[in-house]
């Protein structure tokens, strides 16, 4: 264990897995000379050559389409999206090809590939470079979606994704790339896909979150602790299909639920979590299910507006206080 950044943790996962498995390669824009916008691919071209670390044209459609085709031909492509905001460009490839190929061809093939998609707010990147769109994919059977909240999980679940035989979207929050944390040096350190983690145990209320909002969730838990509330915090890590069992067990214990994410609240993943609980465990609930998320607007540019858009620790704290 040693402290490294989230970005370095993903780099380590790539390096270790590319060494293990020659069928892994990575492609995207500005990887070779820049090492990725967030340094997340730095050094890979030198280590693995430009046959396996590939700069593409600015063609997200062809990047994802080619990754799919390469996976059908036995490779394990990693496709970098530059910004998650550009996934609209290749949405057809993602939902009509990648997600469906195994199923609609009756299991004749697998589509082992990973899409890396940096998402979230970053200082005034504005409407087309700040989005978190994970909830769309929750409605698309055939894809798995993960979103780690810290360097250790970033490494562990990226390694799991690189070893998986299913197509996986790996959302990595842009602002998290510089986060530091202890990360295992074990080359088989895996964070399993499909399992949520109870990162803080509590008795009075469950906060479900993931990715960068885990920071606000934990901060809120600290504040609420001082108020005398015992807060359980769950990090989903896998967003689709998410770990319903862990959430339900927690709510059965705490009787209260708040879900927080940076993505727009309306139509966000929180709705699905709330709905599952309202279906499976409503009798255990002693308060309304509260969701905290981005406001229902595109992300505005000006710092004052961006700050108004951003979901905040105080909203989580107020939300929980209102339950008692």
């Amino acid at each position: 264990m040693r402290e490294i950044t989230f970005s370095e943790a993903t780099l380590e996962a790539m390096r270790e897995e590319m060494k293990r498995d020659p069928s892994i390669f990575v492609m995207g824009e500005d990887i070779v000379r820049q090492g990725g916008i967030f340094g997340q691919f730095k050094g890979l071209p030198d280590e693995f050559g430009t046959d396996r670390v590939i700069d593409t044209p600015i063609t997200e459609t062809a990047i994802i389409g080619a990754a799919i085709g390469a996976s059908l031909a036995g490779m394990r492509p990693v496709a970098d999206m530059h910004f998650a905001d550009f996934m609209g460009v290749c949405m057809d490839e993602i939902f009509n090809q990648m997600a469906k190929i195994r199923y609609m061809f009756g299991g004749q093939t697998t589509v082992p590939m990973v899409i890396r998609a940096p998402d979230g707010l970053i200082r005034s990147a504005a409407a087309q470079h700040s989005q978190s769109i994970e909830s769309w994919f929750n409605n698309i059977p055939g894809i798995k979606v993960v979103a780690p909240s810290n360097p250790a999980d970033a490494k562990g679940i990226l390694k799991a994704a690189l070893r998986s035989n299913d197509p996986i979207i790996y959302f990595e929050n842009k602002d998290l790339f510089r986060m530091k944390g202890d990360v295992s040096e074990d080359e088989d350190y895996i964070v399993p896909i499909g399992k949520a983690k109870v990162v803080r145990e509590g008795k009075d209320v469950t906060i479900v979150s993931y990715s960068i909002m885990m920071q606000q969730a934990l901060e809120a838990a600290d504040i609420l602790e001082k108020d005398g509330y015992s807060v359980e915090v769950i990090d989903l890590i896998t967003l689709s299909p998410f770990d319903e069992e862990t959430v339900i067990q927690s709510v059965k214990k705490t009787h209260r639920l708040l879900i927080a994410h940076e993505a727009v609240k309306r139509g966000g993943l929180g709705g699905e979590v709330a709905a599952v609980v309202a279906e499976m465990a409503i009798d255990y609930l002693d308060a309304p299910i509260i969701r905290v998320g981005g406001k229902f607007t595109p992300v505005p540019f000006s710092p004052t507006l961006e700050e108004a858009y951003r979901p905040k620790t105080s909203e989580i704290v107020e939300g929980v206080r209102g339950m008692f």
Partner: protein
Amino acid sequence: MKKDLYMQFYRTMYKIRTFERRIEEFSMKGDIPGFVHLYIGEEAIATGVCANLTHQDYIQSTHRGHGHTIAKGAKVNRMMAELFGKKTGYCKGKGGSMHIADFSVGMLGANGIVGGGFTLATGAALAEKIKKTNNVSVVFFGDGASNRGTFHEALNMAAVWKLPVVFVCENNEWASTTPYLTTTSVKDISDRAVGYGIPGEIVDGNDVFAVYEASGKAIERARKGEGPTLLEMKTYRIKGHYVGDPQLYRTKEEVDQRFEENDPIRRFEDHVLSEGILSENEMKAIVEEVVGEVDKAVEFALESPFPDVEELYSDLYVD
């Protein structure tokens, strides 16, 4: 050698024609569910191209994919079963006509998305390049598909990286109800090769020999690592866009005339007979063999059960 090849041409073309005629019949009766697009009149293209390929090579197909699938070497019984939605079909009944595929022979799938195959075929070629094999990848697509953005992105990528992929346009003059020149900005789609610095060639798509030769050259070029080629096969869509299409947008006379003048199977027969390459009897034997095979496929499909309801949930994820 040559004779074997010619017999193979005939067998494949005739098998496609026979298969399609039976499909048309069952589809009209409502026995085959879903949308069905027939390849009748375009058989020489899939046949001529795929004769240059091994099972280690890949093809990507379209919504009009039965011919490509047969030409690549798939079995008509499992195809027929798939089109009927049966458990014994290639996709266990989950795919149907628009998603017919046989991965075991390198047929990576029909595609319900027009222009969906360009980038996938490019990716398969990229994989082979990384793996340093000399396998190639071929993508079939329509005149209509040639206007999609995926065409441009894939050709550019394949050209820059010199990938072993061949782009085969089946210009049948129609995209659904739309004459191609009303939506396509060039008369010869092969002209678009200029924009990628790759060879582009016009081929008589109803002449199986011409198709075989031109695609053979392009495939050879790809195998040698010299990059992609754009081939435009000129042909004509003989049937409606889908089975059941009322075809209000063109006259029966126009279609009949085009077919009479330019049926690729008739042209083949005339040629091999007049050149004395195959005899009437040899051809008759092939016809009988093929018709028998398709008849058996129909039986197989009709006798096969529908998939069990639990099958709904399988094949979604591996892990």
